[in-house]
């Protein structure tokens, strides 16, 4: 299950090469390059305005870059430039092989339809049409994210914040994606709810061997979930490395400031 030395794991899934984005004279993201491998969790940390959310949008093809490119190794094994994909191909990628977990679950869910439909919808989008099987898979996923199956027919607007976030995760994972983008997934939650969600995410990511790019300003989240971290400031990646290395032995002045600003628990 976890043979990371195999050839398959040795080829990058996502490659960013010289990614830049500017709005007029303001450079939101400057010359970012990295490779992400299957099963690898990369945290992008930095304060508000550092460019981390812009980078996430560039990586997930939601925003066109001003310079550089993003390539992705498709399920057929061919690595392709995202900008060269057709709109239909890109949408299919988003519905199958990718997930995107928003900070606000309302952005990633349809709040007025049932939880079961929220999860099932993604399956139908990839051609599932057997109602019984869709419902079975939806129930299974609700259980995996610790939502009582008795709530399957309720709409997420009747759910608590933590439940909504877990539902959003189930909706994303039901199609078996290989790469999931997360934008501050624990951002709006109470501390106790956060801990539960983090633990759940950590287990799912390991079990499903997911590659993840997670944007967070919370270094504790980065430490718990990620293998590698990139520290951003002013649109640039100023420091990168193994998560525990960067957090325990930070080199850059700004990273040292970030690390030293954590309040002890």
């Amino acid at each position, binding site marked *: *299950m*976890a*043979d*990371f*030395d195999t050839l398959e794991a040795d080829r990058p899934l996502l490659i960013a090469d010289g990614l830049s984005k500017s709005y007029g004279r303001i450079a939101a993201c400057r010359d970012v390059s990295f490779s992400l*491998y299957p099963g*690898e969790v990369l945290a992008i940390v930095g304060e508000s305005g550092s460019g981390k959310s812009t980078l996430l949008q560039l990586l997930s093809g939601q925003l066109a870059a001003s310079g550089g490119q993003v390539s992705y190794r498709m399920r057929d094994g061919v690595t392709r430039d995202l900008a060269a994909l057709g709109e239909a191909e890109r949408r299919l990628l988003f519905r199958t092989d990718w997930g995107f977990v928003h900070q606000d679950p309302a952005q990633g869910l349809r709040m007025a339809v049932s939880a079961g439909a929220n999860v099932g919808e993604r399956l139908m989008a990839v051609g599932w049409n057997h109602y019984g099987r869709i419902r079975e898979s939806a129930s299974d996923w609700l259980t995996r994210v610790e939502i009582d199956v008795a709530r399957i027919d309720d709409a997420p607007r009747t759910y608590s914040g933590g439940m909504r976030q877990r539902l959003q995760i189930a909706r994303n994972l039901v199609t078996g994606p290989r790469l999931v983008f997360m934008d501050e997934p624990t951002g709006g939650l109470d501390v106790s709810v956060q*801990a*539960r969600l*983090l*633990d759940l995410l*950590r287990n799912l990511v*390991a079990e499903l061997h997911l590659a993840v790019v997670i944007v967070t300003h919370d270094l504790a989240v980065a430490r*718990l979930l990620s*293998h*590698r971290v990139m520290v951003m400031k002013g649109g640039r990646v100023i420091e990168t*490395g*193994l998560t*525990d*290395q960067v957090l*325990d*032995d930070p*080199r*850059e*002045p700004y990273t*040292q*400031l970030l690390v*030293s600003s954590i309040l002890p628990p």
Partner: protein
Amino acid sequence: MTVMIDIADANKTFTMHLQGGIELPVVRGVTFQVQPGECVVLSGPSGAGKSSILKMIFGNYRCDSGRIGIRHRGMLIDLATAEPRQVLNVRRATIGYVSQFLRAVPRVATIDVVAEPLIVNGLSRADAQARAGELLHRLNIPERLWQLPPATFSGGEQQRVNIARGFISDLPILLLDEPTASLDAANRAVVVELVAEKKRQGVAMVAIVHDDEIRHLIADRIVDVTSFAAAA
């Protein structure tokens, strides 16, 4: 014999940017080797850099220069220059680290905290838990605690959970940072036994131990860290 750890002229300095860029030299010219089945104990006063050296061997602290050679799957890899992915592979398959304190994840049961390193390496949950149970038994953690997260345990109990987690794997290199610091005599004896078993299995170990008696019982060789003192 095949050297498991081969450290040559490793240097480490902290630059404290928030304190006006003060340079804090930690260690200089660290050079020693560890053979399979050998336990090397680092000695020296507090602040001499013993823990820093362990962290450099684990890839947790970066080196400014020098080599941290680690035998990984039959090849010598230099952790000082390795890619993050290589370091992670080395930690998964080659180097175990028993830190002074348990960094527990909320909600995870003790038995799973201990079993996790085996599960990560592909063993079934049931088998991994069975081995975790054996170790917890030996370290005198009562079975009624196994399903609880260790966060609420006493310091000594947490350390024993940490030791069980560190010793459960069959990794060829083990780093031990004060494994007996807050243990009673009976549990210290268990740790000494565990170290002896690892030696018989050919595991190369580097340890920090303040207790003279324990050091005497486990050390095959002592490396005096003061000889790597960084102060000019």
